[in-house]
């Protein structure tokens, strides 16, 4: 740690058992180049051992430490104190929205995980298929030999930020639709019924909050729009039910 210290007031959401929730205030002297998660951990270690929070990897790969910091969804292990407050400032720390609260800052994200399995979101993908910014055609063919963990770390920030997810418990949600998009309807046609449905791709109202808060370059909004394109294309194909012309079949085989 460097020698710089800021005085930051942490106002933390607390909830235990069936009691009403409230906020506890903790004044910390903290290095501004530490992360918000470090602050929460300090509170647990030195001020209040009853604080429950979730953390694992501390480097944005597990998705466990998502919280709302001053009302905005953040992955706290990579959110610097200096980026969200100033010396003498206040940080309001709350759990993510739209998931049931287990205790304090811990929410139950089971529904997100299970939905990801429902749409067969792939945790490990060939490197060219992982990034939406670059189409697979732009990657050197050798790169298909490499597999990597997909961008989505299932942190739930997008599900918390989405206004539709706030009002509808059955809307699949940005992360899930993004996972379905990455899988692709041509690879997995059984997904069509799930995403082209009342709680699927058409329920998105283009608020783009999901992409704004995603810490992991998933760009769920863009993936949802691309999924719509896939749905329309798939439906048209089924409508006309035409057998694939020879040229298209050869192109498919060569891809």
């Amino acid at each position, binding site marked *: 740690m460097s020698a710089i210290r800021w005085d930051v007031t942490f106002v933390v959401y607390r909830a235990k058992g069936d009691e009403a929730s409230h906020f506890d205030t903790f004044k910390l002297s903290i290095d501004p180049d530490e992360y918000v998660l470090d602050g929460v*951990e300090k509170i647990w270690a030195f001020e209040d051992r009853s604080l429950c929070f979730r953390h694992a*990897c*501390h*480097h944005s790969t597990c998705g466990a430490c998502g919280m709302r910091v001053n009302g905005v969804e953040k992955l706290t292990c990579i959110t610097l104190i200096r980026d969200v407050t100033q010396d003498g400032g206040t940080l309001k720390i709350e759990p993510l929205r739209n998931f049931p609260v287990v205790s304090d800052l811990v929410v139950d994200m089971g529904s997100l995980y299970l939905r990801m399995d429902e749409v067969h979101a792939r945790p490990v993908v060939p490197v060219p298929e992982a990034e939406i910014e670059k189409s697979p055609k732009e990657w050197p063919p050798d790169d298909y030999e490499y597999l990597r963990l997909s961008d989505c770390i299932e942190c739930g920030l997008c599900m918390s930020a989405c206004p539709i997810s706030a009002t509808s418990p059955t809307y699949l949600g940005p992360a899930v639709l993004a996972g379905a998009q990455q899988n692709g309807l041509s690879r997995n046609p059984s997904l069509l019924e799930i995403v082209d449905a009342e709680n699927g791709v058409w329920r998105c109202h283009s608020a783009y909050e999901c992409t704004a808060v995603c810490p992991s370059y998933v760009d769920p909004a863009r993936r949802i729009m691309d999924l719509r394109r896939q749905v329309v294309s798939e439906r048209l194909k089924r409508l006309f039910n035409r057998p694939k012309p020879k040229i298209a079949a050869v192109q498919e085989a060569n891809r």
Partner: protein
Amino acid sequence: MSKPHVVIIGAGFTGVATAHDLALRGCDVTVIERGDICNGTSGRTHGLLHSGGRYAVKDQESAIECIDENLILRKIVPQAIEPNGGLFIALNDSDLAYGEAFIEGCEACHIPIEQLTPAQTLKLEPNLNPQLLLAFLIPDGTFDPLRLALAFAATAKSNGARFRTFVEARRLLTDGSGNVTGVEVLDRAAGSPEELRADIVVNATGAWAGEIAKMAGGDVPVNPTPGVMVAYDQRFVQRAINRLNVPGDGDIIVPQRRMVVVGTTSFDVDNLDYVPVVDDQIQMMLERGSELVPGIRGAKMRGAFMATRPLIGGGSGRSMARTFKCYDHKETQGIDGFVTITGGKATTMRAMAETTADVVCSKLGISSPCVTREMQLLSYRQYYSTPN
């Protein structure tokens, strides 16, 4: 006849893998953890799936454990692994000299390696230091720590194990002769205390194993040794990159998703619950990492944190073996009903669990063999399919 009840303290890699093994051998398992899965050291690994090359010269017991378990994990839990292999890179004459011992060591430990010229190496990994002299290709990999653990936990849960997170062990319950009969816990989410009776209590708390063992009046030679990790915001390489030298600081670079993680260091600590990051160590990772991948110097830092390894035995830091050990406290201190497993590496988690389960089952008179080598794990997301 009802199943024997085993309480495992700690839901890191060792705890979840042991739960998985014991559930399959016919035990009724409850895992308690004061945080959530991978709350402690396990979550913070840089994610290197060791091929064992790093230990092939000085610590061959660990090296053999690593290569065997590496191959098993690739088979049973591919959902959490980037299986792209790794490279050991020589940048100077000292590295080259070490290379001789490296080749011999890997052969002795049946670790498959392939020597590459600089040109071949740079073709595979264009972002490496172009001045590299030599490289060896080895079967390293990267894993996602939380998802690896969740996969074990999901499978254990489907076989009846219970995972009680945010439940903290406060005291070990003993009978008149000092033998452990259970755990007094605090349910932190509800704020209420509880007593759990157990036939055997397994201490799988890693770096905290010494603290928990003390609760029984026991002792384990755990030497908690933290080290720094720094994550940078660009996937410079597809494979794990190791420096071809005697294991030292900052000589591992692991790609994961769109980042690379550089680690690590080795020092002592008093307070395990909060280890602040030291700026000098971050700087060291930057320097050492840039030697292997020059682009790191200009990369944006994404995160920095400390991870505390549970090393066993005398000596300190780099000289301590990375192997694991299971202590039956009846043999070591005359305390029955209490077993500690600690040491080890993430890569050897399944083997640690097998050893622990062997000890536990022999104490309980269960003769079922271990079946975890071949058993494919369930999707890690299924951990949430059954409520606790």
